[in-house]
């Protein structure tokens, strides 16, 4: 099926023909075609870095969790020396799943079928009845271990790839790392999970969630309109009560960063929040004054001194004026580091990450982790945990509406006519970087646009067409 150039589907269509660079459109067939899905498992999830969890989920030696890299189950285990390993959860003997639970602690991972045993790092230990040598002598014992992935820890987040000789994780993040560091590497002790992830199934193609996570700003105005009607952003001021129209538009302004690798960040302007909290013009305040008035989401006033240990002055400037609040990492990650307004005028942060695990062309598993800084006070952690659960993930009042939308798109993409329709990314930035913006990457300022999502699709296209 593969040709020298773009992969060709069984009806003769090339993958590259489904993307229209001139008009910035994507044919909806990509959201439903089983052949495309199978190619993605190899060309995207088999090649790129995939997020599996966080080190704090397996704090002790021999702790393990079972996670997914695309369509493959993997064991993420900490060995007795504290090092983390990612191995394919398939017994090299007869293909049985080795780890059958979601998590646990095991010095030996023993397959229940024929009893082959493996260390947390995947090394083969032996098979039962040693003298009879069930595993034979054709292969060396060193060749009988679990298949090992290449893994890396970034701010404690565990990523892995089957692309053993491919780009490093830092190369994969590229320019976007400058921004992600503001979230994941900002504090002295780093962050930790507040528990295992929520998991649930959505009957939708993984890309409906993936492309939205590449920083779709516009949908907030309509799909999440309730926020302005009855939610945290509903209008309170007497002057504004005259209008029945909810207004979420101020949250649409800021800077959007995209990347040739499909990463995307929406850096949303904090000016309004700081003005409300201090009564002063943000431009007249120093970085320190802004940090004191509104610490980064998930931090306290006591913790902000740590920031200068870990971030540059330029990063601090961005973090205190237009911090990355929502966005994604290619291919299937969403992050939300948001400031949730409280009834008393104060702000509580929320730190969350999702992965959208492909479960077939029409199905994804939504996996939601909730974080806090390791040294955040207990009271703050409790507030962050509750508010995050109430707004995001399974029962989250914001994301309920997203997970009910993606299945409709997936269904629509199956129609004989519908699959030839296109997703359009034609709201194009013409602004470029704000003056004096210190950060790298593809940067534009102003009201949200479609550029970040379009760059997500361009990278999808690039990987799908790569050899």
């Amino acid at each position, binding site marked *: 099926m593969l040709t020298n150039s773009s992969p060709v589907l069984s009806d003769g269509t090339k993958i590259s023909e489904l993307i229209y660079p001139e008009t910035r459109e994507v044919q909806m067939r990509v959201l439903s075609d089983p052949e495309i899905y199978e190619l993605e498992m190899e060309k995207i999830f088999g090649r790129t870095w995939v997020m599996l969890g966080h080190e*704090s*989920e397996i*704090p002790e030696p021999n702790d393990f969790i079972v996670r997914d890299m695309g369509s493959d189950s993997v064991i993420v285990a900490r060995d007795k020396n504290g090092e983390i390993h990612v191995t394919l959860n398939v017994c090299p003997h007869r293909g049985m799943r080795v780890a*059958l*639970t*979601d*998590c*646990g602690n095991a010095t030996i991972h023993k397959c229940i079928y024929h009893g082959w045993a493996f260390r947390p790092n995947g090394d083969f230990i032996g098979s039962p009845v040693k003298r009879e040598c069930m595993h034979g002598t054709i292969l060396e014992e060193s060749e009988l271990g679990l298949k090992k992935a290449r893994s890396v820890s970034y701010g404690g987040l565990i990523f892995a790839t089957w692309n053993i000789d491919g780009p490093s994780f830092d190369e994969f993040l590229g320019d976007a790392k400058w921004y992600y560091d503001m979230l994941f590497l900002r504090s002295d002790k780093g962050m*930790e*999970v*507040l*528990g*295992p*992830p*929520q*998991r*649930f*199934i*959505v*009957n939708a193609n993984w890309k409906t969630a993936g492309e939205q996570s590449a920083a779709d700003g516009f949908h907030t105005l309509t*799909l*999440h*309109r*309730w926020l302005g*009607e*009855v*939610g945290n952003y509903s209008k309170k001021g007497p002057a504004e009560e005259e209008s029945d129209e909810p207004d979420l538009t101020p949250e649409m302004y800021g800077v959007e960063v995209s990347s040739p690798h499909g990463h995307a960040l929406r850096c949303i302007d904090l000016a309004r929040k700081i003005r409300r909290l201090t009564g002063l013009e943000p431009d007249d305040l120093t970085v320190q004054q802004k940090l004191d008035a509104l610490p980064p989401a998930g931090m306290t006033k006591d913790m902000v001194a740590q920031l200068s240990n870990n971030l540059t002055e330029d990063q601090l400037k961005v973090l205190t004026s237009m911090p990355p609040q929502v966005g994604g990492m290619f291919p299937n990650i969403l992050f939300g580091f948001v400031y949730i307004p409280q009834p008393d005028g104060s702000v509580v942060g929320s730190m969350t990450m999702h992965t959208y695990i492909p479960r077939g062309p029409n199905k994804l*598993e939504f996996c939601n*982790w*909730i974080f806090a800084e390791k040294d955040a006070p207990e009271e703050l952690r409790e507030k962050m*945990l*509750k508010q995050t*659960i*109430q707004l995001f*993930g*399974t*029962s*989250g*009042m914001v*994301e*309920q*509406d997203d*997970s*009910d*939308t993606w*299945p409709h798109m997936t269904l629509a993409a199956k129609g004989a006519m519908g699959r030839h329709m296109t997703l359009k990314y034609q709201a194009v930035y013409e602004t470029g970087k704000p003056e004096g913006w210190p950060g790298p990457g593809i940067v534009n300022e102003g009201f949200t646009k479609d550029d970040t999502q379009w760059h997500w699709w361009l990278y999808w296209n690039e990987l799908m067409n790569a050899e």
Partner: protein
Amino acid sequence: MQQVQEQNSDVSQGQYVAVGSAEYSAILTFLYEEAALLDQLRLNEWGARLATDLVYTAPLRHTRLGVDHAKSFVRSVMHFHDDYRSVMGRILRLSGQSAWAEDPPSRTRRLITNVLIRETANPNEFAVTSYLLLTRSRFSDHHVDVISCERRDLIRRETDGSFKLAKREALLDQSVLGTANLAVFL
């Protein structure tokens, strides 16, 4: 961080209230009425039956080995982690114009069975366990989402003899829920 706490001791201690007794029937009626209000989208009326000190949670569930069964209930991150104020906030949202996850609303059936009631140290509070099978039908999909759980409630008798829900813990069976969200109450 996979902290797992044991079931709070205030539920599941005292004497059973006899199945079929007047007190049992009164509480069973409360559960049936509650299910009817939720299935009929009478959310504000349901909200009126919640105590203001409500604790409303749904732990995560893990697949664990038999010896670790107790650890299969995860009460750190949960699917619901709510109180009276936040549940009323959910009702407010669902009653608004733009709660798309439930508009058009799901057609639901809450089947309540296996109800066991125990007395507690407080003569006006009862520890009630029930099984819930919730079927959820959306749009024209012939497939129906099935949500099954055991509910551990604390139900309080008010001075006027009516009942209020003071605590609910819904122990879901699925480690990966087979529904796209919990925009419905358990």
